[in-house]
């Protein structure tokens, strides 16, 4: 199970349309969820539409929350997506075995066993979640809450019985401007990591689409970091290698 969670607060303004990038992710079997972080009084109505469309194209869900709700939302979304992903796989089986389209189409007395299997798989299947964090200027005051949410997510994932890993990326790449940077390679433990996201001054662009494409690529190359990439790819892992 593979998930990409985008945390942002504005519209993309550079490069490829992020909705297209999300569709690419879905084609690669990666579910895309999006959280829009808004503070009181902040209006991001233009971004709201984009956030929703990215999630729809990526087969995931989207939510607008404030920083206080962030941890719980990240945790809930990840869990919910796991269940949905398993459910979709199980629905395929249902079609073949029972001729039923979904769990809902089964009579209630036959749902119990199917749901027990869904719960079991949801708990034990390996899971990879890539978090892609928008660190453009308006996000800066919210980054503390984002870090807390990441730590909280790791705590939740550690109690799963299946192997669970996260990777963290931020965008824009301050040197390159056109992509994202990997802050944390696949890991299941961040106890030793003092600071996940950099506190540097960020440039103003929001290249959401290109950044997403790079994360999809990262998923495909399980062993990124050992591979030497051309400069044009832009993904210069700082902590990696």
């Amino acid at each position, binding site marked *: 199970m593979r998930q990409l969670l985008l945390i942002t607060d504005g519209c993309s303004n550079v490069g490829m349309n992020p909705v297209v990038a999300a569709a690419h992710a879905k084609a690669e079997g990666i579910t895309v969820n999006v959280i829009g972080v808004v503070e009181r009084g902040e209006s991001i109505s233009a971004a709201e539409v984009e956030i929703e469309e990215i999630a729809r194209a990526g087969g995931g*869900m989207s939510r607008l929350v404030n920083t206080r709700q962030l*941890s*719980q939302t990240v945790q809930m979304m990840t*869990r*919910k997506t796991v*269940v949905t992903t398993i*459910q979709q796989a199980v629905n395929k089986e249902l079609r073949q075995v029972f001729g039923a389209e979904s*769990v*809902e189409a089964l*009579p*209630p*007395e036959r*749902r*119990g066993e*199917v*749901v*027990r299997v*869904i*719960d079991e798989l949801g*708990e034990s299947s390996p899971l990879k979640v890539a978090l892609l964090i928008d660190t453009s200027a308006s996000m800066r005051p919210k980054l503390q809450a984002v870090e*807390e949410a990441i*730590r*909280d997510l790791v*705590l*939740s994932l*550690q*109690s*799963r*019985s299946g192997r669970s890993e996260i990777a963290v990326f931020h965008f824009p790449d301050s040197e390159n401007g056109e992509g994202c940077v990997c802050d944390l390679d696949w890991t299941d433990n961040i106890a030793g990591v003092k600071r996940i996201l950099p506190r540097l001054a960020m440039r103003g662009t929001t290249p959401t689409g290109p950044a997403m494409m790079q994360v999809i690529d990262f998923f495909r190359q399980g062993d990124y970091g050992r591979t030497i990439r051309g400069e044009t790819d832009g993904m210069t892992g700082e902590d990696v290698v």
Partner: protein
Amino acid sequence: MKTSSELRLAPGTVITGKWNRGRYRVERLLGEGANGKVYLVEQNRRLYAMKVGGDAVDLQSEINVLRSLASRRRRAEPYLMAVDDCVREDGSEYPFYVMRYVRGSAVHEYLQREGADWFPLVGYHLLGKLAELHEAGYVFGDLKRENVLVGDYGRVELVDFGGATALGKSVRQFTELYDRGYWNAGSRTAEGTYDLFSYAVLCLHLFEGRRLLQLAQTALPQNRSPADLIRLTDGHPALKPFAGWLARALRGEFASAREGAAAWQLIMYGGGVKMNRKRTPAGWAAGLFACTMLALAAAIVWLMTEGVLPTGLS
């Protein structure tokens, strides 16, 4: 994704089950959980609680827990009455289940109305419920004020099993304030100690609500710790006798809810009755009795050897 918030059932609505054709008349909304809304419904002049969910899988997980609980205690009256789907006019379908209606109010409302004198007993009953659940192989998970109903004479019923999780799995649903992970006090793995931690926070919430919420809001996430919670345990007179107990629960020191309940009970009655007259300590009495018997035996032997007693007696 369908969510139950889209569905509102007005009082008077009649719901007919799609599969089993059971008919229920909606009386009113009782409450709302993470997986759906709970309505008071009537069927054949009897009242039941009906939980209508937005997602069949989520609701079924809950039903699975209730089923496995029911199979463990056969003597108890059935809790789960029916499971079915309802179809709305627009064709949308919502899964629901019907359960026994428990009359009562949320624990904080009950104690406010009936007085804090009830607290130790209500707490003890709640610990008993948790122990029962743990012994059935589940952790409640989302323990909070709203999910604890108290009826007449402090009887306790847990409602909303949306967070109930098989032991050893990751807790399905929780509320941050009551979550030991949130307080940097442990994992989110379903263990008896997880519920006991939430239980202790619940006690604090009942009597030190303002200070508890303030602590949650002001402390930096990395600085939140059970030690801060422990400092809240002996401020209020209702909590003070249980301060030591609460500290142990917050530190995860009770091996099980059963053990916690036993320790709680000791405190409830542990003041002891003051006796007007000192009781004779049992050991001393036994010693006295033995001495008396020895003296008697010696006397008999002496009398026999002196020939005072007829030999026939021996």
